[in-house]
């Protein structure tokens, strides 16, 4: 088994064992140390492995794993011994009592190799046609089951159970499962056949066995052909095989006595068949499965396992670190804080104007009520919708030349009142006179759709603060939602713009 579990797999096994044990602890000095250990690694899997290896529970977990592996080795060794003995016993029985007693070559071969060949062919068929099937019923799976049973009997605590579970999963889960089970199966069969071969050699060495064949309905030629065919593989391996004459001579028919038989070809045939049809195929299969099992067992950690997945954001975050550059040393800032100014706008409307009022829309889209807003007085000077700083300056100039008493700027509440806004307000205040500048804030509905209650209030307060900083009077700032112009708002707007008697 040490052949199969390579060092890298040991690391992964440890991580798998611990991940299912540590119930998402994530606190304590052990955790922090482990995090530090993980930090130096690159790659999610390496981090997970480093983390678990650095946990204080790693040492007992490793011991558990080692114990489980040892138990597995013991179980497999015991089963091998059983297989060996079984093979030897079969061979001993098949060879007969010795002392010149005839041994039917076909019965001998069938009893030694029959079941093995049948199951080998079955195994090949399953591999060929349904390789994805989990390794269910096979000697190998049975061995694992026995090991799990013994393990459960020996220790029921969390750590050994987790260790056994992790080991089983890595060994038996698809795609490795089939190959691991096959390795064990072939190994056990090899043991059986090895035992049979050993006993056969012992038998051939210590007893006098005469090989015969007999038949009732078939003829000598068929048998000769059959044995000849059987002898192909042994002959290729270098074992002597009986020729036609020897085959004919070995036939047992009622009444005749056997002539002296040259033991070499027949022994050669027997041993050759055992090796060629027994040990050799199983060895080849074992080696093939061993290679495949190794490859499948070397698979990386399953990152989709929730036990790992929940650690990944902490252990291997997408963002490795963040740092602040160009830290703002200027704490005063170059803008007034809204908190320095009471939020909220004036409760009462400003008095109606005595002269014409200029109205401009500042960085707003065409409002729902149209432009200019309805209900304005006859003296309203429409400056249009302005965008750029130049537009503002031009418009303010027009207003002054037209002798406007007030300049009413309509601004969008969804715009954040930043320094650009302040600069614009300052420009308008400079052009029209700060105490003549009025600010109507529209789109409150849209604002409340975008932001929460508290944030909306903050936004309005920020606008008020910006206006104040530009020199506007508090009562000159009001909220008039032009997208939802109700009768109340219309009246207000009318009053501000000097509409006479408009109710």
């Amino acid at each position: 088994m040490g052949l199969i579990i390579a060092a890298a797999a040991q690391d992964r096994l440890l991580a798998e064992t611990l991940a299912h044990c540590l119930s998402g602890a994530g606190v304590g000095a052990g955790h922090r140390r482990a995090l530090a250990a993980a930090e130096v690694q690159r790659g999610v899997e390496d981090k997970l492995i480093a983390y678990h290896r650095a946990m204080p529970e790693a040492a007992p977990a490793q011991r558990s794993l080692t114990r489980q592996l040892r138990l597995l080795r013991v179980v497999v060794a015991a089963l091998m011994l059983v297989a060996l003995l079984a093979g030897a016993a079969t061979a001993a029985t098949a060879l007969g009592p010795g002392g010149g007693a005839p041994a039917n070559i076909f019965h001998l071969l069938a009893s030694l190799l029959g079941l093995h060949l049948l199951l080998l062919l079955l195994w090949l068929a399953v591999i060929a046609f349904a390789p994805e099937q989990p390794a269910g019923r096979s000697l190998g799976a049975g061995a694992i089951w026995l090991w799990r049973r013994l393990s459960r009997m020996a220790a029921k605590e969390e750590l050994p159970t987790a260790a056994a579970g992790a080991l089983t999963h890595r060994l038996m889960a698809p795609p490795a499962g089939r190959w691991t089970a096959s390795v064990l199966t072939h190994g056990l069969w090899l043991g059986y056949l090895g035992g049979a071969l050993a006993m056969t050699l012992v038998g051939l060495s210590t007893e006098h066995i005469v090989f015969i064949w007999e038949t009732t309905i078939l003829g000598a030629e068929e048998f000769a052909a059959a044995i000849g065919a059987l002898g192909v593989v042994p002959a290729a391996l270098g074992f002597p095989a009986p020729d036609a004459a020897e085959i004919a001579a070995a036939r047992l028919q009622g009444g005749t006595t056997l002539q002296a038989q040259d033991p070499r070809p027949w022994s050669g045939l027997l041993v050759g068949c055992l090796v060629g049809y027994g040990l050799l195929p199983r060895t080849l299969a074992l080696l093939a499965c061993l290679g495949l099992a190794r490859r499948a067992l070397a698979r990386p950690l399953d990152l989709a396992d929730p036990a790992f997945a929940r650690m990944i954001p902490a252990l291997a975050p997408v963002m490795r670190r963040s740092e602040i550059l160009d830290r703002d040393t200027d704490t005063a800032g170059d803008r007034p804080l809204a908190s320095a100014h009471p939020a909220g706008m004036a409760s009462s409307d400003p008095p109606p104007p005595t002269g014409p009022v200029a109205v401009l829309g500042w960085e707003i889209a065409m409002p729902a009520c149209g432009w200019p807003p309805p209900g304005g007085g006859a003296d309203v000077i429409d400056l249009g919708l302005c965008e750029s700083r130049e537009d503002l300056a031009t418009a303010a100039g027009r207003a002054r030349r037209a002798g406007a008493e007030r300049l009413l700027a309509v601004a969008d509440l969804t715009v954040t009142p930043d320094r650009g806004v302040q600069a614009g307000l300052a420009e308008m205040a400079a052009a029209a006179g700060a105490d003549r500048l009025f600010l109507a804030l529209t789109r409150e509905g849209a604002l409340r759709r975008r932001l929460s209650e508290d944030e909306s209030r903050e936004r309005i307060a920020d606008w008020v603060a910006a206006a104040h900083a530009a020199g506007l009077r508090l009562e000159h700032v009001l909220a008039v939602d032009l997208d939802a112009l109700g009768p109340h708002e219309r009246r207000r707007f009318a009053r501000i713009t000097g509409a006479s008697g408009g109710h």
Partner: protein
Amino acid sequence: MATETLHIAVVGHTNAGKTSLMRTLTRRRDFGEISSRPATTRHVEAAELEMPGAAIRLYDTPGLEDSTGLLAHLDALAREHAGDRADAIDRFLSDPDAHGPFGQEAKALAQLRRSGVALYVVDARDPIRARHRDELEILGRTAVPILPVLNFVADAEADEAAWRAQLARVNMHAVIAFDTVVYDEAGETALYAKIATLTDRFAPAVDRLAREITERRRELRRASARVIAELLVEAAAAERRYRLDDPAAEREAAEALQEVIRDREGRAVEELLALNGFAPGDARLADLPVAHGGWQDDLFDADALARYGLSAGTAAATGAAAGVAVDLALGGITLGAAAATGAGIGFLLETARRHGGRLAGRLSGEGIVRLDDATLGLLAARQRMLLDALMRRGHGAVAPIDDLAVDPETGQALARIARRARGTPRWSALNGAAGRPPAASMRREALVEELARAVAGA
């Protein structure tokens, strides 16, 4: 081998969603500060994206507040010292005294000049204004490739088409629509693909990053699906036994089972949330169908099924409680072994009751309550719905998302797989001693694996 670093600056107007974008891309809810006030981000904050073999750094910058003024300032500088416009910017940046009131903008532009590409974030709900044009003018002068990112495109107010048209007029055709509230994996992949195009030399690294992110998302989805699959298998295999001759016992057993299942579902939900980066008390939890630590609908509410469009086709236990099916034990072997095929046999219990003690005496006298098909389907359906909601939640999300609907078909399909666990009580940690893990078994694992695939793929 020294790895080159790709510097990506995230720039834009105040409150356009730069920090939100950073949070989504870095998967860190706590990155930077977000508020609706001006000048929230006042410094450049860098995030290094973890990747073997290459380094990519994202930089969050202070908003460009007064681009109109800055543009005028830069033009004045250019007139003073005859040189090209890129020079003017460099001159502005290199002399702190020349910054004037544009200290924040200077930080942003300095970072921009050091970067290989800039993501210019705009709030797609706003109309394109003069300030945007001024910003684009300034950005254009820095000679750094600009990729406009339209944020909040999922909002009703957003006019993506108008923005694309306007941007095309200033020759910006590669535009990304990316909503940091409703996370869209395809959007993120497209973002990185366009960055790769604009930064030629770094294209392999960026592609690798995009692949890594996609891979992680897939693993996260599979892990979440497995959590749900474990829940369903344990719920299906859970059972409570009671003596038939005790009239109150059936109700007690049913209620005990319901309690244990509710609890188990709660734990699964907690695990799902933790997996997907939600903390308890996370504000975004309010939008998910997990309010106040519990579900808004009780799993065993008799009307819940109807509300979710599922029909209770099996014979529910009468008088006991909704959502459970009753089974009978016949001398240790349960008749419900046939329930592995999903057939509820509540009617047998009815018969037993009607004929009273006679029949009960002949049977071994034990009844078993298990979760019935319809409720198992409901459990599956709403877990699946939760998974969808979690996968779609961007880390920059602050506002609520729409309700997702429970799909009864999916629920029933999942329940059909899960109910194979019925009749194998040792597969559920909910039976037996508390704290004992369910029996490890290859067949159970295979079922969980199959169910997880169905949950993730459905």
